[in-house]
Each structure stands twice: as C-alpha cells, then as structure tokens.
C-alpha cells in the first residue's frame, strides 16, 4: 500500500483527499462514493475520479472496505449474522421427521442462538432449489454463511459462487467444496466398539456396509474396523461385507453362511436386513448399530452426537464469517466429533 521512492524508502500512502484534488477539487466523501461505484455520483464524475485515483496511485485499503461494508450493512443488520442451513428435505418440517436431522437442526439452532445468529433452512437437490436458484436466493437475502447437512452420494455437489460464502459441510465427502467438513469420529468409534465387543466375549466380529453409503463414512468405518482386525488372529477375522445393487439379500445370505459372525456392526438400514436373514438361516448373530439413535430400549450401539455436529458446524462457520473469510485454502480441514458408546444388550432376533 505504501508507494516507494527511488531509494526504496516508504512514503505516506495516497489519501482520498489527494485523489479528490487531482480529479479537480472534489470532496473526499465524493471520492469515497465514486470509488465504491455508488449511483449517487454521476457516471461521468465517477469515471473522472477513478481515473485520477489510478493516476496518483491510490490503492484500496481492504480494512477500510471491510469497515464500510459493515457500516452500510447496519441497516440490514438482521442478515449480518444470518446462516443458511441447507438440506435435502423439502422443508424444515420434512427435515424434522428424521430424528437425526432433528438433532442436527436443534444443535445448530441452540449454538446459533448462543452466538447471536439466525439460521434458516433451505432445500437443495431433488426436493428443492437448483444450484443457480440457491446462489441467487442466498445473494438476495444477503446471507454469507452456509452449512450443508449430510447429502447422500447420489446428489450432485452444488455449484455456488463459493467466493461469496463462508461455508461448512457436515459429512458430504463427495462434495469437494466447501473445504471445511464436520464429521463423526467413526474411525475411532468403530475401533472402540470392536474392542468392547471382543471384551464381551464375541469372537467373530463383522462389519456390514451398504454400497450406497456415503464415501466418507464408508472410509472411516472400514479403516477403523480393518485396523482393529489386525490384532485378531487370522481365523477369527471376518472380511468386510459391502452389499448393494441386485441380489443384495442373496449376497448377505452367502456372506453370513460363509463367515458366520457372532456379531455384526452395521448401519441401521442394512442391519435390519442382516438380522432377518441371519434368523432365516438359523445363525445366532447379534447386531450393533453404527449411528444408533439414542434410545431407552437398551440396545447396544455407537452413538453419533448429531446435536454436537450441528453446533460445531455453526461455531466453525461463524469463525469463518468473523473475518469474512471465503477461503480457497490450500488444503482442507475436517473436524471430528467424538462418538459415544451406548451400552446394553445387542439386538438379537
């Protein structure tokens, strides 16, 4: 920002007053408006002032810009700390049908209130807005903080003008943007579950995944499982079961018959199928849910703290908004939120 003399000594920076004089005697406030392209100043005058600014080497001060942005947004203070929470349900009411989504939203809402921000729900994807419309709506409402709730792998990543937003995603491993991710610490969670089950006396511990599960979860859960398996003797190891597409039930049946696990870690949807088929073939196989819904019926499982995920997402996006950061960082951050273990009896058919 400082101009340099030939000897390289820094000189006082060019002020708006000097620009005003150079342009023909304008007041510094006129210069300020002109440089910000405010329509209150006639186009011809704006041009003259801008030309003069370039000529005398006036450089924009990013801090002053930030200050002005805030001052002029004071009228719309409501949107100063407005955060959009984007999900795949058609409406907030639809979203709240799912216990997990309800928890995500409530955690986010509580944290937002604590930090003095507002959140609102917007639908994206099949049931909601297209990328273009979403971009337009956010821009029109002056929202610059965005959180993406978990989207399944079949949903195409949104194409927004990322430079406008401070954004965070919860899971959504297949979205390359935004670059800040919040996810449950399932690698460690599955590892701890594995150990606990072994301690309880289960010998053949298996893991079952649906082929359509989110890639981030699949990676974390599989890695945690494979790592723990290394410390188990080879003849007690159960290969990963990934099932999907046509003939899923047959695949499960074959896998169960061949490997005969005592207990299976599974996401609830697949877990139910496994339970039924195991009963069918007369295999005594317990089930432990990954991402169990905290319940009082005493089923064992890994609890994902969805409320905390929502809260951490809000805290993270507010931290980014604090410096109006719309980063294209060289690298990405993933914040892992610890899972918990719900003790009890494993589900058996």
């Amino acid at each position: 920002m400082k101009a340099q003399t030939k000897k390289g000594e820094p000189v006082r920076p060019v002020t708006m007053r000097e620009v005003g004089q150079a342009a023909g005697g304008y007041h510094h406030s006129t210069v300020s408006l002109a440089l910000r392209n405010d329509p209150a100043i006639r186009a011809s005058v704006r041009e003259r002032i801008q030309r003069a600014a370039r000529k005398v080497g006036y450089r924009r001060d990013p801090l002053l810009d930030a200050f002005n942005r805030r001052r002029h947004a004071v009228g719309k203070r409501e949107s100063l700390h407005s955060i959009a929470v984007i999900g795949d349900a058609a409406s907030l009411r639809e979203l709240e049908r799912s216990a997990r989504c309800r928890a995500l939203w409530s955690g986010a809402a509580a944290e937002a209130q604590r930090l003095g921000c507002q959140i609102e729900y917007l639908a994206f994807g099949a049931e909601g807005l297209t990328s273009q419309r979403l971009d337009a709506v956010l821009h029109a409402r002056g929202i610059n903080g965005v959180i993406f709730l978990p989207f399944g792998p079949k949903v195409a990543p949104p194409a927004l003008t990322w430079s406008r937003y401070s954004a965070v995603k919860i899971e959504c491993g297949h979205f390359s943007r935004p670059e800040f991710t919040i996810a449950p610490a399932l690698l460690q969670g599955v590892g701890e579950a594995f150990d606990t089950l072994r301690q309880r006396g289960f010998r053949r511990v298996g893991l079952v995944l649906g082929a359509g599960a989110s890639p981030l979860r699949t990676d974390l859960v599989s890695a945690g499982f494979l790592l723990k398996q290394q410390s188990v003797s080879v003849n007690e190891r159960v290969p990963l079961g990934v099932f999907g597409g046509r003939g899923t039930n047959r695949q499960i049946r074959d896998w169960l018959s061949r490997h005969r696990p005592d207990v299976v870690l599974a996401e609830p949807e697949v877990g139910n199928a496994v339970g039924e088929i195991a009963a069918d073939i007369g295999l005594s196989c317990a089930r432990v849910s990954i991402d169990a819904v905290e319940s009082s019926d005493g089923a064992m499982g890994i609890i994902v703290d969805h409320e905390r995920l929502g809260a951490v997402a809000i805290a993270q996006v507010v931290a980014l908004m604090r410096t109006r950061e719309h980063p294209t960082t060289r690298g990405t951050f993933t914040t892992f939120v610890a899972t918990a273990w719900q003790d009890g009896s494993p589900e058996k058919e």
Partner: protein
Amino acid sequence: MSSTIKDVAAAAGVHFATVSRALRGDPRISVATLARVRAAATNLGYQRATECLALSARRAPRSVQLRAERIALVCNRSPENGYSRFVHYRSIERGARLHAAELGYACELLHVDRGHHDARSLGRYLAGAGIRGIVFMNIEVERRQIDLPWSEFSAVKIDSEKLLPPFTSLAVDQFGTTLLAFRRMRTLGYRRVGLAVSDEGELTSGGLSTAASLLAQSELPEAEQVRPFYFSEGLTNQTVGRLIRPWLERERVEAVISHRTQVRTYAHGRACATTCMHTPVPGLAGVMVDFRQVGRQAVALLVGQLQSGQFGVPAKGTRSYFQGVWYAGASAPLYTALKERRAGV
C-alpha cells in the same frame, strides 16, 4: 439482532467511547468500570467488530499506551535449541500471527525450555500479562511437560495428543494424507504400494497411517496386499536404507509411501512419495501440508472460544484434522513410464 457498542454502553451506564476503551484494555478506565462494562458485554453477547478493531489498530500511537488483547503461542523448544530449524514451527507461527492480527489480537511466542520458562514461571507470566488464551504448538514428547491451572485459560493445541489435556486440537490428518498418497499411486498405475513409517508415530496416532494402508488395499486379495514396514524414528536414513531392503524384495514393492521427505534415499529405485512435506521439495511427489493454515485455524478456534467465554478443559474437545494437497513429482512417475525407463537401462 446482534448488540452494538451503544447497547453495551447503555447497559453499563457509560458513554460508548468508554466501552471501546474498556474492551481494549485502556489503563485509564477504572477497575470497577471495566468490570461493569465486561459484564454488560457478556450479558448482551456483544462481539467486537473485527473491521473496527483492525482499523483502530492503525491509529498513530499516542502518549497513552493501549494494550491490545494478547494470546500466547507456547512451544517447548527454544530458539537456541533449534526452534528456527523446524519449518513447521515457523509456518504455524506465521499463520497464527497473521490471523491474530486480523482478529485484533497481538501474539506472544513463549518457550518452555532451558533458558526460558518452566511450567511455573509460564503460569505466573501469563497471569501477570493478563493473557488467557493459549495456542500450544506441537509440544514435543521428550522435552519439558507443561502444567497450568487450566480453568484460568482457554487453550487450543496443535498435535500434542497424549501430552496435554483434551483441549480442542489440530493436527495433520495422517489418515487422510496417507490415504490420498495411496490412492494417487494407484491412479498412477502402481499395484504393490508399501507403507514405511515410524513405530513411534503409529503408536502416537493410534495407527492412522496403517489404517489408511489397509483401507487403500482392501479391494485387493490378501495375497496381493503389501504389509507395512515399521522402523524406529531415531534411525538415520542410511540405516533405514539398510534395514528396508529385505522388505522391499520380499513384498515386491513397486512404490514406497513414507512420512520422511528423504524417502528417496531408502526407496532403492522404486517410485516413492511422502505423506507430509512442509514446502515443495524438487522432484519429490507427495502431500504438501501448509502449516500456516494450521496456525491460522488454531487462532480462529481459540478466538472463538475466548469470545464465547469457554475456559478450562472441555468435557469433549473436538479434533480438527488438516488434509494437504497432492504434488506430483518425478519420484512417482506413471508406472508405465517407470517400467520403460528401467527396461531401457
């Protein structure tokens, strides 16, 4: 709607200029007024506008010294003991200082090491200086331990997983970087990709690199998977080079992935890549980790904690992992290109 400085002034019964001075630590404000203003600000959830802060930091210094709010960067290696040789420390520091300045805080770098602080004097110094926010930079295992009255402070730590209380922590995503390296090697055409890492590293991280290696190879039949090679962190590259040969031959390794940037010295002609370089190394393929971003994020998290009054050890800290970026390099050419090159020799 968020509260303004005028709202705080009204609640505390003072002029808004007084609020500004009080929150900036101006010594002209009496202790009683300061307490009243701080209480009002906390009750209203007032957050100082960063734009205003940054601008007022520019003001010409006056006869009255204004104290900017400070945070401490603490590590347990002093400059005399090689602090400046560690590129990642310097990068973390730079990233931290820059972001702290953007948020209106000054940064003070403190060392807990011979000739500098010990745990007790550190605590006294911080209390005396009114510093309540700390970023612990990579506290090293073999060096001095740090213990403070934690409830007085808000802290964030970089690495130091087992060494400090479970504060919110940041670290390089060892699982992610290793997985990225493996997947890139597979894309380049290598099938037998082997991991060569340190025992101690795996112990500290809980086996994250091994987990990545297992996952990356899980689609291959067990017979085709390459088991990792573990060596002690203290060994020289030459010694590693000697010890690794049998493994390279037995497992028929085509490409080596390792955490050391000197991996080329012990890859013995195989393709290789590093899982963590701090600055680009000419010719070396691997994952680049920009530690300035880690420093920056540490400060962002700490300031968030300070501004929402989160002090002491949290019941559940979060861990933020930083994933780097893949840099292609001559050390990991396309598999077919490497084969041709060797055939031609």
